[in-house]
C-alpha cells in the first residue's frame, strides 16, 4: 500500500481511538499487564508491591483495554497478510547473519526497547503517534530520541540487515 495512504488510514484509526476512548494507541501496557499477571501467579505479594508492576497488576489482561487492542492488532495483521498472501514462516535477517544470532539480537533489542518504554512512561511508536498528534512535549522529546538512538547505532549493526 502507498505509505501515505497507509499513514492516513492509521491516523484515522488513531483519531477514532481518541474520539471513542479519549486515549491513543499503544502496545506496552498490554505486555505489562501480561507480565504482571504471570508474575502474580508466582509471587502475588511481591507483584502487588512492585512499583513498576503494581499498576499493571491492578488491570489483568482480561480487563486491560490495551490488551484487547493488541489482540485486535494481531488479528488485523493476520487477516491483512492472509488476504495478500504474505504469511510466511521466516527468520528475517541480512545475508551475513546466522539464525541463532538474529534471534538473540531480536530478543535483546526487545528487552532494551522495554526498558526504554518503561523509563519514558510512554509506549513506543504507538505513543510517538499518540503523543505526537497531541503535540505532547514529552512525546516529541521521546520520538526525536528514538530516531537519534537508532541512527546513532545503525552503522554498527549494518551487517545485521544488509
Amino acid at each position, binding site marked *: 500500500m502507498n505509505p*501515505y495512504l*497507509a499513514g492516513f488510514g*492509521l*491516523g484515522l484509526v488513531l*483519531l477514532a481511538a*481518541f*474520539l471513542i*476512548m479519549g486515549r491513543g*494507541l*499503544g*502496545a506496552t501496557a498490554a*505486555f505489562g499487564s501480561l507480565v504482571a499477571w504471570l*508474575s502474580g501467579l508466582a509471587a502475588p505479594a511481591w507483584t502487588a508491591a*512492585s512499583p513498576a508492576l503494581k499498576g499493571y497488576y491492578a488491570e489483568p489482561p482480561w480487563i486491560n483495554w490495551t490488551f*484487547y*487492542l493488541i489482540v*485486535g*492488532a*494481531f*488479528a*488485523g*495483521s493476520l487477516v491483512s*497478510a492472509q488476504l*495478500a498472501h504474505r504469511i*510466511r*514462516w*521466516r527468520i*528475517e*535477517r541480512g545475508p551475513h547473519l546466522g539464525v541463532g544470532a538474529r*534471534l538473540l*539480537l*531480536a*530478543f*535483546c*533489542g526487545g*528487552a*532494551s*526497547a*522495554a*526498558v*526504554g518504554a*518503561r*523509563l*519514558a*512512561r510512554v509506549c513506543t*511508536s*504507538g505513543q510517538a503517534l*499518540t503523543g505526537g498528534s497531541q*503535540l*505532547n512535549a*514529552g*512525546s516529541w522529546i*521521546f520520538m526525536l*530520541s*528514538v530516531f537519534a*538512538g537508532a541512527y546513532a*547505532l*545503525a552503522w554498527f549493526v*549494518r551487517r545485521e*540487515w544488509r
Partner: protein
Amino acid sequence: MMLPLYGQELITDGQGLVAALGLGFGFGWFLERAGFGSARRLAAQFYLYDMTVLKVMFTAIVTAAVGLWALAAIGWLDLELVYLTPTSIGAQLLGGLLLGAGFIIGGYCPGTSVTAAATGSGDGALFAAGFAAGIALFAVGFPGLDRWASEASIGELTLPQVFGVSHGALVLALVIMAALMFLGAEWAERRFAHLRPARD
C-alpha cells in the same frame, strides 16, 4: 460537546473493550499493509534508502493532529477528557534512546513485532518475548530508575504551551514541517537508492 464517548460516559467499560478489538484490528491492518511486519523494511529507515517508516508515521500524526484540533475547534470534542502522558524530560530522553537502540538492534518496536509475529516471523515473536522479559527485568532490576522516572515528571505539557502559540498555529506548523520532511524523504530514497540490498 459529546466526545470522547467514554469520557462523557456514553459507553461502558465493556463496550470500550469491544471497541479496542475493532480499533486494534484497524491498527494491525494498516501496520501490515504499510509493510511493517518486516524487520528489514523497518530497519531500512535508518539506512535512508527506504523512508516508509517516516512517511507512514508522520502522515498518521498529521491526520490525527488535524482531526483533534478541528473537532475541538468546532466544539465536538473536549480535549480535557483526552489522556495526555505527563512530560518527564530526562526519562523520556533516555527512554527514547534505549528504545531507538532496541529498534535498530531488534528490528521492531512492540506494536510492529506483534504484526510480524502474526504473519509468521520468528524474529518478531522473539522481539515480543524480549520486550516482555525487559518489562520484568525493569521491575526486578531497576526499581530506583522507576522511582526516578516518576519523580522527574513535570506534568502535562504541550508544544503550544512550550512555544506560547495557539493550538491551531502549531498544527499548521506541523503540517508544513511534515510536508518538508516528505520532500526530504523522497529525495533521500533517490539519493541512497544504491544502498538497497539487491535481494529485496
